[in-house]
């Protein structure tokens, strides 16, 4: 964990904070705040991030998600309001993305075999429709947490929030400019720019293979990791939706991308392919 408060530029005092959580680097840049205010905001943010890490970590046997994965195939599992909301949202997003965003996808799983997480709003419970199912919130938690953080920082009017670089949310604009300029570097030539996005009260999510070149997103239809080249970037208001959409559009076949995107008004997406010769092919989806 790191906290820096700088007044080197007296016109724009700025706080920077970093926390390694949610299996990534979480960062906050907070300009034009007093130091006590920045510290209080950051502490509150990290409390939220740590709680999310505990709750949504499927590898922690004591997490709420592990309890669901362990018991929901045989019993209805009672869950709290937030988990119910998350599972409800994930269900909605699965439908809206034509099944390409799916928290029940895991290596070896196949959506054509069926499998639902069945929610009961009256009793606030969840139950799996078949044995062998499990849920992974890794692809959703970052967007959900960033959504909560963006609401926390919104009243301050100016902040930049990043979870691992793949999910970024700009509150207001850069203190010296009209927007936050976010550059996606070229995969093979990091000094070169693949594409720059301007965020003003908006979010950007990027999905693709990780920096080491390994695929880590599961195709819900085949149960295999997606190994294709390139990445998908989605820009829009809500960090939760950009996160969901970038994952779904990365996994979905090209023929279905447009119809998936059309269900989400106000969101734009690009297919970015960095070539070994230094060029970049960018296609607006």
């Amino acid at each position, binding site marked *: 964990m790191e906290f*820096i408060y*700088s007044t*080197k*530029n007296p*016109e*724009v005092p*700025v706080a*920077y904070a*970093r926390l390694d959580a949610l299996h*990534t*680097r979480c*960062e*906050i*840049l907070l*300009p034009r705040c007093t130091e006590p205010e920045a510290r209080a905001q950051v502490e509150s943010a990290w409390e939220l991030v740590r709680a999310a890490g505990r709750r949504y970590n499927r590898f922690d046997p004591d997490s709420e998600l592990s309890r669901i994965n362990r018991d929901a195939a045989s019993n209805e599992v009672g869950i709290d309001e937030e988990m119910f909301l998350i599972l409800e949202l994930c269900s909605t997003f699965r439908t809206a993305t034509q099944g390409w965003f799916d928290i029940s996808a895991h290596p070896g799983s196949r959506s054509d075999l069926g499998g639902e997480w069945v929610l009961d709003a009256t009793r606030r419970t969840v139950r799996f429709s078949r044995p062998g199912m499990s849920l992974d919130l890794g692809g959703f938690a970052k967007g959900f947490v960033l959504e909560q953080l963006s609401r926390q920082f919104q009243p301050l009017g100016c902040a*930049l929030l*990043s979870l*691992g*670089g*793949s999910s*970024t949310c700009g509150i207001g604009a*850069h*203190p*010296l*400019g009209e927007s*936050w*300029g*976010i*550059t*996606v*570097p070229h995969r093979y030539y*990091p*000094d070169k*720019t693949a594409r*720059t*996005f301007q965020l003003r009260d908006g979010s*950007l999510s*990027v*999905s*693709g*293979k*990780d*920096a080491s070149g390994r695929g880590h997103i599961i195709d819900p239809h085949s149960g295999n990791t997606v190994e294709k080249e390139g*990445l998908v*970037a989605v820009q829009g208001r809500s960090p939760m939706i950009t996160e969901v959409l970038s994952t779904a559009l990365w996994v979905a076949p090209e023929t279905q991308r447009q119809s998936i995107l059309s269900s989400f008004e106000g969101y734009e997406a690009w297919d970015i392919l960095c070539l070994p010769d230094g060029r970049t092919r960018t296609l607006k989806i």
Partner: protein
Amino acid sequence: MSMDKMTRKDFFASLGSIVAGSTALAAFPWLTACTPEQDRLIKGETARLGIIGTGSRGRFHLANLLLDSSAKITALCDDFPPHLEEAAALAPEARCYSDYRKLLEDPEVDGVIICTPLNLHARMTIDAIVAGKHTFVEKAMAYTPEELTEMCLAWRRSDRVLMVGQQRLYDPKYVKAMELVHGGAIGEVVGIRNYWYRNNDWRREVPAPEHERRINWRLYSASSRGLMTELACHQLANGGWAMGGIQPVSVCGNGSILFWKDGREVFDNVAAIFQYPNGVNMTFESIISNKHFGMGEQILGSQGTIDLVRGVMYSEESIPRSGLEQLLRQIEQGILSNSAFAGTSWATETASNDKGLRFVDHVVVNDGASTVGATGDGSVELMHAFCQAVITGAQPEKIVEEAYWSTLLSLLGDRATREKTMLEIPGGLPW
């Protein structure tokens, strides 16, 4: 810039956004006149200009001026008819002269732009000032230190504008860089490196052998001081800016004709070291038979390095740096830039592969290969500033002083390389 007529707003949009409120303006006082407000004051007025010397550089300026609504080309002069005809084709309304003294008598010329061989600069500049013309002369100012002094004194005796073709004076990224240096961003300045590498013979095509010395005047010692006055002259101003106006006290150097043994008389490779009173060295090296490193200008500090050509600052600190941390450092320095950090996952960067902070956006990196002029190098802004000065009659502050030092350092650097000795550099201005 498109082929459309440039507006004055276009000219200073980039400059203004960087320069506005910059603490470095004290080191760049000539820019204080380059404001949109100043342009509004002279709106509708035009500078009537004559160009003396319509070779490659003269036509480069001509092409830029034809896009500037504050310029009107009324006269052209060259004693080499093919060059004059090429220029006249671009500006058919301009009167043409083969003798510059006739052009200086033209009452419809308010200002002249002198783009002739170096050995002609002093005579033509002094004649132009005496004739009552505002004068722009290409760099380097003069062929000898004595001529340099004479030019400056002639200008001081007059009420005319004198400007010199050092386009870096109007390149916004240098202003921003010096603001960082003076603000302590790279700590104490411990060195200044300049280099300019090309791999070409520096020749222009000659239509007939008798025109060789006229066309390829840069290669002959009667008309040129070679790489020091043609290339180093641009870069040596960096030292004075970085050192807060202090100039070097000595220079030593070396040079030779190493590769292009084609009858030329000036060196095709030179290296010179200028030393400041506090012991800091500024180097200049040029080789024109290898272009791998292109053009470079670097201010080395105890805590960081500024790459002037690329507009990037590097830190000496060996700390991992993410995109948001880079943004923190940029905001601390008052820099607005796009931050490279979005990607599919985060990876640590270390100082050894530090990509640095880009302190200006949209930098046009000039590799120094062009022997005429490069896009985005300040040439357009410089010409517009001259038009502005011709219209207002106001001399941009300190600009002759800048040119004086750059020319003196390049002339003494040339002498040091030819004599293979160390020379003392006289302090103070001759006026």
